């Protein structure tokens, strides 16, 4: 039993990472109806920026804040330069764009910071959380930040005018323009926010997996699994999906013989396929109600 609780708690802790990543994925999906395959690489690049700032002597929280601002601006710039011209292009063109962005960001990071792994500090420390050996203070901090982020996003989309405008632009672009919303900038804003959320995910993950250009590969797959499980249209679903995928992954690794670490990743992929077959809208995804 203790092993079970142990594994669930550890699952929730890693799940927080997936939840953050899934949040970023859902943000972009809402804005442009595509999955951004380069989301993980953008997050990795942001993390390197934070690392670089700290190397230059910037204190942790200032580096954190600056990185968020830079990532936000970076996301908007990428959208304006690369994806705005592709807005009316077919899906495959966009996919090619995402893959190109993936490769470019990955190589540029390798070029600037090389491929050796780097230590990344944590602001929460890594002592046992509340005297418990089960989860560390960093993991607890990660869960806290993820939940805080979710609440902030919920409040933003629910209660601010700009949040409402973003939802309207995502749901029905033509109608949105007819009430005076500049839909093109709403998409850019979505990219900026997704990029900043990705940066938070990267900064939280880096102390656990170490910083290097390929650090987000696995995480992104789990993030996709989490987003699909939770429903691609729901931020709450994304976070829930993240925690569930984390727990699921740990339990399967522990209790099913022969799975071990090597087979964990295929399990994430299998999960995506199963959810898409059985319940394509995911756990929290909204099925559109329509009167006929």
């Amino acid at each position: 039993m203790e092993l079970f609780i142990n594994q669930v708690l550890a699952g929730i802790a890693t799940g927080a990472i997936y939840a953050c990543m899934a949040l970023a994925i859902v943000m972009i999906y809402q804005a442009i109806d595509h999955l951004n395959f380069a989301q993980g690489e953008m997050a990795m690049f942001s993390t390197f920026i934070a690392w670089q700032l700290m190397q230059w002597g910037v204190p942790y929280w200032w580096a954190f804040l600056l990185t968020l601002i830079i990532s936000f601006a970076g996301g908007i710039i990428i959208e304006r330069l690369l994806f705005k011209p592709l807005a009316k292009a077919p899906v495959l063109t966009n996919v090619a764009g995402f893959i190109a962005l993936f490769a470019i960001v990955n190589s540029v990071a390798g070029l600037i910071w090389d491929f050796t792994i780097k230590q990344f500090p944590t602001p929460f420390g890594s002592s046992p959380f509340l005297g418990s050996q089960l989860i560390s203070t960093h993991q607890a901090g990660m869960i806290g930040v993820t939940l805080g982020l979710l609440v902030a996003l919920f409040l933003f989309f629910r209660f601010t005018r700009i949040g409402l405008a973003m939802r309207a632009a995502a749901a029905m672009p033509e109608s949105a323009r007819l009430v005076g919303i500049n839909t093109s900038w709403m998409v850019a804003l979505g990219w900026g926010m997704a990029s900043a959320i990705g940066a938070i995910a990267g900064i939280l993950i880096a102390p656990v997996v170490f910083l290097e250009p390929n650090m987000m590969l696995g995480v992104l797959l789990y993030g996709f699994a989490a987003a699909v499980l939770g429903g691609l249209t729901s931020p709450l679903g994304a976070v829930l999906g993240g925690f569930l995928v984390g727990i699921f992954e740990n339990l399967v690794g522990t209790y099913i013989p022969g799975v071990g670490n090597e087979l964990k990743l295929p399990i994430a992929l299998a999960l995506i396929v199963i959810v898409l077959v059985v319940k394509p809208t995911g756990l929290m995804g909204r099925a559109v109600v329509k009167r006929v």
Partner: protein
Amino acid sequence: MSVLLSVHDLRAYYGQVQALHGLSFDLNEGSMTTLLGANGAGKTTTLRAICNMVRSTGGIQFEGKPLNGKSTENIVRLGIAHVPQGRGTFTTLTVEENLQLGAISRKDTKAISSDIERMYAHFPVLKQRHTQQAGTLSGGEQQMLAVARALMLRPRLMLLDEPSFGLAPLIVRDLFNILGKINREDKVSILVVEQNAQLALEIADKAYVIETGRIVMSGNAKEIANDESVRKSYLGY
């Protein structure tokens, strides 16, 4: 009476196909003007051209200023509310959110909630359903919502594309009565496109008849309604 909207030699294109062939008309401040014509005559295209949602040439002036080259959202922000065909309802959002979106470009945020209350007074059914997803409303209710959403802009001019489409006759009558009231009491000028010519001519004060992208007839709504030859050849009733 001053001219609020003036359209001169408007030509519009869908790809290679020309849909409007030099259409000109004026809309007076405070008036309710109707564009009539058969299917495919170019009524919808005219409204879409005013809001720059279709490629067009020619002069469109609103309050004496040209609209050419302005984006749809900036034209709307000048005070032109467009209720498109199919109503443009945000089906996944709630009724109240739809109303808030109507006012999303307004700067005077304080007056918005009292305007929403005003809309609920105009359309009591919307108040009953204000937390409901707009897609669950009936066709008539959605049309009310679309008109209310357009009014939330506090527009100078409202463009309505076939508001009677798909509605039961009684509801259509209701809706047109409300439109007349809005026109008289809220001083909103209205340009309404209709296939239901009989009804439109009853409440409008000026009418233009379009055929294959050109204005073929214009005048006082009463005169056109009483002119049997016009009715028979263009309006089909």
